[in-house]
């Protein structure tokens, strides 16, 4: 199940774990990425709070937690090579995985069709 937020993040849920990243639109807007900061494995995230930082040459952007839960895995390869997020933001450029406090929380988010229509 693929969902999107109005902050241009995507989530892919399998069971009670969701993989989170920034959308292709967000990556294009940011331009060349030079630094990624991810939450620590085991960290508790609260929906709406800053969870990660993605920096381009020009500016730093906060990536917000789209749902509440516990971080189970982070993409070390993205930290090592920020350009990998830019080149495949909705695939190999995933940022972190989170065990959802409430698996139904994704139901409130936009599906692919809704995000495609969402003003950018």
């Amino acid at each position: 199940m693929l969902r999107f937020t109005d902050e241009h993040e995507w989530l892919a849920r399998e069971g009670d774990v969701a993989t989170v990243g920034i959308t292709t639109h967000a990556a294009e807007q940011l331009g060349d990425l030079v630094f990624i900061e991810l939450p620590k494995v085991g960290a508790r995230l609260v929906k709406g709070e800053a969870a990660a930082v993605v920096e381009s040459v020009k500016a730093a952007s906060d990536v917000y937690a789209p749902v509440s839960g516990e971080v189970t895995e982070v993409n070390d390869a993205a930290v090592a090579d920020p350009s990998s997020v830019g080149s495949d933001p909705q695939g190999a450029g995933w940022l972190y995985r989170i065990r959802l406090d409430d698996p139904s929380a994704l139901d409130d988010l936009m599906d692919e069709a809704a995000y495609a229509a969402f003003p950018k």
Partner: protein
Amino acid sequence: MPFDTLRTPLHALHLRHGARMVPFAGYAMPVQYPEGLLREHLHTRAQAGLFDVSHMGQIQLIPRTGNLVDAARALETLLPIDVLGLQPGRQRYGLLLDETGGIRDDLMVAHCGDTLVLVVNAANKVADEAYLRAHLTGICEIAVLPRALLALQGPGAETALARLAPEVAAMRFMDVRTIELAGTSALVTRSGYTGEDGFEISVPEDRAEGLAEALLADVSVRLVGLGARDSLRLEAGLCLHGADIDAGTDPVEAGLGWSIPAVRRRGGAREGGFPGAAAILAALAAGPTRRRVGLRTEGAAPVRAGALLFAEEAAGDAIGRITSGGFGPSLQAPVAMGYLPVALTEPGTRVFAEVRGRRLPMVVNGLPFVPAGFKRA
């Protein structure tokens, strides 16, 4: 874009080349083109980048007596530089000062035979024009030149421009020449804001697009936006007025005392006689209490303008501030400039910058971060 945003003569060209336009100093300016900031920056250091800097102010001073010495003498009442000694066909960097010795703007002054031409920052050009008029109108007619300004920068700039005018190869750094380019009379200086060799080219507005297309016909020349212009100048250790220098900084602490020649200093034939002279001459003699330095990070996180600096990782009050910071594509690492107390300005000194609530270690670095490519001889 706000409805009253101004356009440069190259606006249509930018759009044709896929520029992302942003508002800057009241103008719609290209921040980048489809290749992106990193490639544009690296291309400029490897070959030749073409920048539209038409938003900057080009202000001509015409002596009412017809004698340029009168205009030069008058301009020396506002700038702590040697204008009387400036030779025809040469240009100088100077600081426009206020009464406390703070910096109103930084600019270039060119000797163009029977006039002086100043190039000033876009954000300050309206205030600069008013200031010049208020102080010089008795001696000089002041004209804002309705011209475009293009910058061609990089090790390939001379070869690219020489295809249009072979005589540019004979120009040295800070030379000024009137040269025919692509059928247009252009005012050309060998200077720039990237740390690389290069030229700034002033042409009538209606000739700008033709000149740009003529330069872009050379595959080594690519359009570069304001985003890369900023990372290039930061790596070159060059100040941005409004960030690294402003009304609250004096030339000495900013590391720009070199622009004040001996003739305007204590003991010089034309000592003082400019705004803030007492404070600046005293600072030149005594040395500053704080100084602008380059800083690199120990980690990968960039440290941006506004970040406070501390001497220690845990305790203590802020001792300084980052005034420019970002990522240096040629270094593949973050770079920054800021002010620190003089005792902490030796290269290799370790300080800490507060970023997102944490103190990150930084190290004082000499400036520039990347060696300059100016053609001095």
